[in-house]
């Protein structure tokens, strides 16, 4: 349903990709976790990143906003080449201000919400727009309240994160990302830390965002969500993209043997 209503930006080759990755490698000492990833995400795409535990999904996602530094490779965000410089056999950030700016354009939602516990929900939402983006307090406040209304938390604006349920915290964290007006959103297992009865409320918010045509990359173990909501599936195995395609094709089976095995393990569980 959601996938049908989304603009089909995916195969519009003439537009600049939202995220473009070439030859991405990530090593921790002797272990190579990402072994050469080439990847494009176009504006408006909702891409689910699937894979077994340890396959490198989080590492991949975290390389995209440079929470992890790639060991090798090139990264382009909304047409802008990220300034990564070679030093020895590692890369380092060439331009911190560029990275800080790009991070507000590609906002991240974490498994453990990671709201700032000394700030109220509203303060959490207003923090980065005011202090990083240097937007005006009044405008930011209106935007923040609009986002809280949208995720159904306006009545908890003055509460502290510790006073919220996990589902509420994650919805607040999504709102915190949205207030920065990012052009893309990264989600790393946004529902994995939630009690089962709280998963739905968070997925609903994400479904609405997807239907709006937001660019989203989602690492998830929610197979039904990945199948129904994403415009594309990327399947990682041992640090490589092993399969990639439309959810309907991949989930029908028979396209990729490894993916079928991965899915069947899920269906049994």
């Amino acid at each position: 349903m959601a996938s049908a209503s989304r603009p089909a930006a995916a195969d519009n080759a003439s537009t600049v990709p939202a995220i473009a990755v070439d030859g991405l490698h990530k090593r921790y000492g002797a272990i190579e976790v990402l072994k050469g990833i080439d990847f494009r995400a176009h504006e408006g795409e909702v891409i689910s990143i699937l894979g077994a535990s340890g396959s490198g999904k989080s590492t991949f996602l975290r390389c995209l906003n440079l929470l992890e530094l790639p060991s090798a490779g090139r990264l382009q965000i909304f047409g802008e080449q990220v300034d990564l410089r070679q030093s020895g056999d590692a890369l380092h950030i060439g331009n911190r201000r560029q990275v800080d700016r790009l991070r507000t354009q590609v906002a991240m939602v974490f498994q453990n919400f990671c709201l700032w516990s000394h700030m109220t929900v509203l303060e959490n939402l207003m923090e980065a727009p005011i202090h990083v983006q240097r937007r005006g307090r009044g405008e930011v406040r209106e935007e923040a309240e609009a986002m809280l209304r949208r995720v159904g938390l306006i009545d908890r604006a003055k509460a502290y994160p510790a006073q919220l349920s996990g589902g509420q915290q994650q919805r607040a964290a999504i709102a915190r990302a949205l207030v920065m007006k990012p052009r893309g959103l990264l989600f790393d297992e946004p529902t994995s830390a939630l009690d089962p009865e709280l998963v739905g409320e968070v997925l609903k918010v994400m479904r609405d965002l997807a239907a709006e045509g937001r660019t989203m990359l989602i690492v998830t173990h929610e197979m039904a969500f990945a199948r129904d909501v994403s415009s594309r599936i990327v399947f990682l195995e041992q640090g490589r993209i092993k399969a990639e395609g439309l959810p309907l094709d991949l989930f029908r089976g028979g396209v990729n043997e490894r993916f079928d095995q991965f899915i069947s393990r899920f269906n049994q569980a």
Partner: protein
Amino acid sequence: MTSGMFELLGFGPQGWGLPLLKAAGVTIAAALCGFLLGSIFGIGGATLKLARPRALRLIGQAYTTVFRGVPEILVVYLFYFGGSVILTTLMNTGGFPGFYSLPSFVIGVLAIGIVSGAYQTEAYRSAYLRLDRGQIEAGTACGMSKLLLLRRIVAPQTLRFALPALGNIWQSALKETSLLSVIGLTELLRQAGTAAGSTRQPLLFYAIAAAVFLVIGRATGAGLNRMESHLAKPWRR
């Protein structure tokens, strides 16, 4: 007896009220300045102990080991005599003969500051280690620079976590000002001693000094507790 006591403690020409009040002021000032100086040493010490280079960590370690291990009165003496030796040498070589020493208040604040700082180092360090790495990472992911993270997230949360321990350290700093009587600072204990000697009423004046210490300690402690519970509010469910 009773009227005599009022006279002794009053603010008239025969009374010890005013000198004692002034001495209490000196005690509070020395404790406060020492404690604040100690926060600078403490934050510096914690930064050293948490630093990546091993040499820096060792310096931080040496600082806390020495100043928590040596009796405080010895630190006071060392600063007093060490300070005057250095100052006298400097002045003499600069062409000013004679003996020089720093004011005992300055020496006292330095000594209390450096000892208090050694304890505060531990308070700040363990508070920092309690920070949730995920929250710092979330700040980074929102484009915050290191400095902004420090100012908006790391510092406020570290302070909140350190506050209970800092409250205890403040109480010790307050009591330890009494050691400064040995270098001639007219703080509460020394003034009480002077009054006790000249009136031959040691019990009365030492009891008064004790009571004043208690009152200052309890009053500031209550203030700190209120601040602590106010700052802990976000963590309560």
